[in-house]
């Protein structure tokens, strides 16, 4: 009985002991396992970080795989780690020998890798030459075959670009589940590259779109002057908008020796010089041309000249504006010199004793002198007004004024002029026009004077000029309202009359003159664009600044100005004033 008890106790002890042992063994195994896992996680993190740092923004897959294989021995036991990449023209095979293996061993993994790549790509690779590089331990004579082997495909942007392999002379080493870390690393790297590639592609797309849409002509050539990039603007400049394979010779031909594009590119590429030409006349336009070397920004070509770029910047418009400005200046000089020169000559004449005795002639010269000085004053005032308008310092001082009286006063003022030109001048007033309107009476008189004198000037004897005032109601047809208020305006197919004005007072000056040609209508209110109309070929009378100032005055009142015209029939100039 005691024996039996001892036996039971012993058995229990053994069991407990065994259990404890098993338990402790399991515990220690768990600790080891979690330690291993921790280690691998740490490693995983560190290698991923290292990878991230080393890869940086590199798109070079080989470099990235080099980084991966270089760090792998800390984690996986292997005889060789190798990778194989497919470059369309060749296969790159690189193996790092951790311990010495035989040539057959290397050839074996090489063949296995090529086979698996061939299967992955579904493509025969036998004919493509293999570029081999071995690093690490030396090859040795040995019969040890490949006993463990593990292959991971390298996928970038959904495409297989190569395989990564670890191999060992010991058997049974690599199992799928143990290789997760390797998968993770490879995945992480390929994802990074894929994303980078996308970024680069997007940027490249943006860059291309930019180059394509640029107004400047751009052509880039490599060191052998082969055209690498040419945008539509550049093709347009050389008159070959639809040619696909534009060459440097197309540029040479079209530039007709006006610009030595080939020579300047050569200078730029070989000497790294930037060259610019200010104004080259090409096909009716003027261009600034810039030739510059293109340097590599990173990698082995960093700082090295890899190409040359030529930029054609169109300055035709600037030249036109410049020319217009010059014309404007000489026109102003002309207009100022006429009265000044005349005043000088009148002074000269009036110094003579004889003229003072001829009362009639003397009075005539005094009158001419006063006319010349007031002509000059008008021009100077116009110039000052335009200067103020351009500086944004043009101001009007509004007060309540009777618009009907202002119009009637102007009609009276031009009575003599219109009579002597045999032109009927009359005011036409709508029923609803307000008595008092907030405006600058002097400036609005100036506007009316300008428009009325233009209307008389451009009308033939027997013609008529009407100054009309009426109320416009929002949404109503301006033309119909004008007709209802007594005067039909001209049908103008080019200038569509707006009817979206808020309720406003409209003042219109309608003449039965020569009208304004379509092309000149747009230039009317432009400072530099003076033009001679039909019968004034060489010289528009005066500075032509009148309408520029008129527009400025109306806009300073918060109104708008417009015009409709029919050639040979007449024109209507109208403006709005908030009532």
């Amino acid at each position: 009985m005691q024996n039996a008890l001892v036996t039971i106790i012993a058995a229990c002890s053994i069991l407990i002991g065994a259990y404890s042992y098993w338990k402790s063994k399991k515990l220690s195994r768990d600790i080891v396992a979690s330690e291993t896992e921790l280690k691998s996680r740490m490693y995983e993190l560190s290698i991923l970080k290292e990878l991230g740092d080393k890869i940086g923004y590199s798109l070079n897959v080989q470099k990235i795989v080099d980084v991966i294989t270089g760090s792998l021995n800390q984690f996986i036991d292997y005889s060789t780690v190798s990778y194989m990449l497919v470059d369309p023209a060749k296969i790159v095979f690189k193996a790092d020998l951790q311990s010495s293996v035989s040539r057959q061993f290397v050839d074996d993994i090489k063949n296995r890798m090529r086979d698996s790549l061939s299967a992955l790509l579904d493509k025969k690779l036998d004919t493509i030459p293999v570029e081999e590089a071995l690093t690490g331990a030396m090859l040795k004579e040995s019969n040890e075959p490949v006993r463990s082997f593990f292959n991971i495909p390298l996928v970038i942007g959904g495409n297989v670009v190569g395989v990564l392999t670890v191999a060992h002379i010991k058997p049974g080493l690599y199992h799928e589940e143990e290789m997760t870390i390797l998968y993770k690393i490879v995945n992480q790297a390929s994802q990074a590259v894929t994303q980078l590639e996308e970024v680069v592609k997007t940027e490249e797309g943006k860059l291309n779109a930019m180059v394509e849409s640029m107004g400047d002509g751009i052509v880039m050539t490599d060191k052998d002057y082969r055209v690498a990039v040419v945008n539509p603007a550049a093709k347009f400049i050389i008159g070959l908008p639809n040619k696909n394979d534009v060459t440097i010779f197309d540029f040479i031909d079209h530039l007709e020796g006006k610009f030595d594009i080939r020579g300047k590119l050569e200078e730029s590429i070989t000497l790294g010089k930037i060259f610019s030409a200010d104004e080259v006349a090409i096909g009716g336009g003027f261009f600034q041309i810039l030739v510059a070397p293109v340097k590599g920004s990173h990698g082995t070509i960093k700082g090295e000249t890899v190409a040359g770029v030529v930029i054609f910047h169109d300055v035709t418009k600037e030249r036109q504006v410049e020319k217009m400005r010059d014309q404007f200046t000489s026109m102003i000089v002309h207009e100022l010199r006429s009265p000044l020169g005349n005043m000088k000559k009148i002074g000269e004449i009036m110094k003579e004793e004889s003229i003072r005795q001829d009362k009639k002639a003397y009075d005539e010269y005094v009158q001419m002198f006063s006319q010349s000085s007031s002509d000059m004053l008008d021009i100077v005032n116009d110039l000052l007004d335009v200067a103020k308008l351009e500086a944004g310092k043009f101001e009007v001082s509004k007060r309540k004024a009777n618009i009907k009286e202002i119009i009637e006063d102007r009609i009276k003022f031009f009575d003599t002029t219109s009579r002597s030109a045999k032109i009927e001048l009359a005011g036409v007033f709508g029923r609803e026009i307000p008595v008092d309107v907030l405006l600058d009476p002097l400036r609005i008189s100036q506007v009316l004077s300008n428009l009325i004198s233009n209307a008389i000037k451009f009308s033939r004897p027997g013609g008529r000029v009407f100054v009309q005032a009426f109320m416009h109601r929002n949404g109503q047809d301006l033309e119909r309202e004008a007709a209802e208020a007594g005067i039909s305006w001209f049908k103008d197919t080019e200038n569509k009359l707006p009817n979206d004005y808020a309720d406003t007072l409209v003042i219109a000056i309608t003449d039965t003159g020569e009208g304004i040609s379509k092309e000149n209508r747009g230039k009317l209110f432009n400072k530099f664009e003076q033009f001679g109309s039909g019968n004034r070929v060489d010289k528009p009378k005066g500075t032509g600044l009148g309408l520029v100032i008129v527009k400025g005055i109306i806009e300073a009142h918060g109104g708008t100005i417009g015009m409709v015209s029919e050639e040979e029939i007449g024109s209507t100039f109208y403006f709005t004033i908030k009532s």
Partner: protein
Amino acid sequence: MAKKILIIDDDKIFAKILKDGLTQSASKHEVSVAHDGEEGLEKVKQDRPDLIVLDMMMPKIGGIEFLKKIKLFNITPQIPVIISSQLVDVEKISESVELGIKGYIVKSDFSLENIIKQIESILNKEH
């Protein structure tokens, strides 16, 4: 000796001053005035002047166009023409020299006396 002179200028004050100056000068020239190129062409045909004082910038027919017209239609091309302009416009000067002008005066730079002297000297040379 009194000559027939035609002034073509849209600047009425200048035309009047020059006309007075020429008619009252020692030679007592006979002066007519046109205010644009079109009127000028008419008067050339009508009056057959001995000399023309021609403005460059004018309405209807400008100075250069006027010169081209008298050359093209062979309207008394032997009449000496003096250009009177406010500007020293090299392009227009050379163009008008090619069209056979005899002189170029910058109106505001020359005194009336000077302009009359210039006209007299050309009249003397030509006739």
